[in-house]
């Protein structure tokens, strides 16, 4: 396999769309675009075999069920799960993390501790805050270093014998820093705590191996990995999932219901109340197969070199502050920055005027903004289809911003 972002880009209809101006899409950490093959897989399913899953024996229902379970198998393979039974379909990362907060969290007791990091997306922060309020659980915070990395030297202080869970991002959606998971796992295991990783940013960049990581829960979203939105995944260790109470109540998650009482289905069904996102699962499967068809080793080389160019240029600019690690090692191509005289919304707006789509604001990571004492920042995040034209146009745009606000 070889790798050429431009030929990949041609597989995405949005880049061939007659927009008013060319599109330099650098908002991939918010949502990626969808390749034609994924759009087609969804359309094909909706056109030819749409039905509700399970319990139906007619051919459409049988096909829908097969498609849905095949998607579960593909996800299991992609993340190195031991069994498809460990793969729970949710509506997104946020839903997946709330699932853990409500089921695993349900079993925690007053005084138990949960550790979160200051680098978390609100989706891996608010559920723990709500749980803490509700059940008298104590939240501990792992700080970040100035360079954008978790301050692992503080692990000993925040992970006590009362710790039941460490909830951390696998990669920050602001700084791009990849977490040293082994350190977290080691600290957690030493006190018998579990580890939940938020993989929303990590998983789009290639397969992960949940077994090798040694974690207990892993959450991610479809829409950030070239798949439809409205779907996400929670992976959990099978033996752990089996001990958890149900999440939402409804059809599909029960074994039997009567006036006398209810018994629940085993995982994963126990956690999948109601009609699941079937077409979206079909799309997620197609997206994973599409990612797997790419030479990710070469792709990473390209994205590293794009990132290196960008970071090097940025470091040379006065009044520009990079919010994140300086080098390209152990980080994803997610580059956030502030400009001294320009507000992130103005920066994004001016970049948009020349076709560059980035995001400005707090990126649902206000605690991190607080830690760096900024109101917000501008983020350029790369997908598999980005190339030097994106970097160059972004840099031109930053020049333009400076011109306007100088």
């Amino acid at each position, binding site marked *: 396999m070889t790798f050429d972002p431009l030929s990949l880009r041609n597989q995405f209809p949005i880049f061939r769309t007659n927009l008013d101006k060319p599109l330099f899409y650098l908002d991939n950490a918010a949502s990626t675009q969808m390749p034609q093959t994924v759009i087609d897989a969804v359309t094909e399913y909706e056109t030819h075999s749409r039905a509700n899953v*399970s*319990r*139906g*024996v007619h051919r459409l*229902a*049988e096909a829908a*069920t*097969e498609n849905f379970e095949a998607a579960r198998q593909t996800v299991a393979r992609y993340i190195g799960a031991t069994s498809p039974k460990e793969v729970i379909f949710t509506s997104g990362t946020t839903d997946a993390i709330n699932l853990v907060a409500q089921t695993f969290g349900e079993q925690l007791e007053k005084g138990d501790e949960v550790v979160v990091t200051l680098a978390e997306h609100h989706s891996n922060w608010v559920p723990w805050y709500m749980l803490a309020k509700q059940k008298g659980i104590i939240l501990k915070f792992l700080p970040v270093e100035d360079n954008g990395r978790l301050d692992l030297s503080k692990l000993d202080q925040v992970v006590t014998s009362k710790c039941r869970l460490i909830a951390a991002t696998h990669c920050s959606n602001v700084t791009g820093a990849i977490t040293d998971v082994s350190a977290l796992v080691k600290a957690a295991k030493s006190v018998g705590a579990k580890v939940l990783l938020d993989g929303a940013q990590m998983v789009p960049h290639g397969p992960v191996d949940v077994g090798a990581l040694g974690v207990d829960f892993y959450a991610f979203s479809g829409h950030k990995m070239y798949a439809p939105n409205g779907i996400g995944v929670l992976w959990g260790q099978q033996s752990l999932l089996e001990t958890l109470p149900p999440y939402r109540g409804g059809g599909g998650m*029960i*074994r*039997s219901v009567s006036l006398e009482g209810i018994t629940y*289905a085993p995982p994963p069904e126990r956690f999948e109340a109601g009609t699941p996102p079937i077409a979206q699962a079909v799309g997620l499967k197609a997206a994973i197969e599409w990612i797997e068809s790419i030479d990710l080793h070469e792709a990473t080389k390209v994205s590293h070199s794009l990132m290196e160019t960008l970071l090097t240029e940025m470091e040379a600019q006065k009044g520009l502050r990079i919010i994140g690690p300086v080098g390209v090692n152990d980080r994803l191509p997610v580059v956030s920055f502030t400009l001294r005289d320009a507000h992130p919304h103005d920066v994004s707006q001016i970049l948009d005027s020349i076709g560059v789509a980035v995001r400005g604001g707090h990126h649902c990571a206000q605690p991190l903004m607080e830690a760096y004492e900024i109101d917000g920042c501008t983020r350029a995040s790369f997908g598999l289809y980005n190339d030097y034209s994106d970097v160059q146009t972004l840099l031109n745009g930053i020049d333009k911003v400076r011109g306007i606000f100088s």
Partner: protein
Amino acid sequence: MSSNLYQDKIIALSKDLSNAGRLDKPDTTATLDNPLCGDRVTLDIKLKNNGISELSHHVRGCALCKASAALLATEGKAKTSEELMEMTVALENYFKEGKKLPEGWQTYEVFAPVKDHKSRYDCVLLPLKAAVEALS
């Protein structure tokens, strides 16, 4: 295609109530549900020399499940727990992958048309699984 499922032999088996009902003083008993469709099978079993000497079934379920239970009452005779376990796995593979059935279970080929109907495999498997559970 599906109508092939309901061949005379399967229908006849599903109506064969010669071993339906409950046994007096069974050596072992098991009830198993299929949570997906609500089918429920109860088996009473008497044992001799490690194998089944008598088996009765009580089925709340579809024709396939009933036929499977009726066949088990005759074909299961003298079979051991290991043989039943082996057959349960083999029958699943027979459906899924077209593998052969083990020696002594050839009569189950009456269920060949089920191969085309993934959602019905469990209907046929349920009585076998209940027997395995009863004997384990």
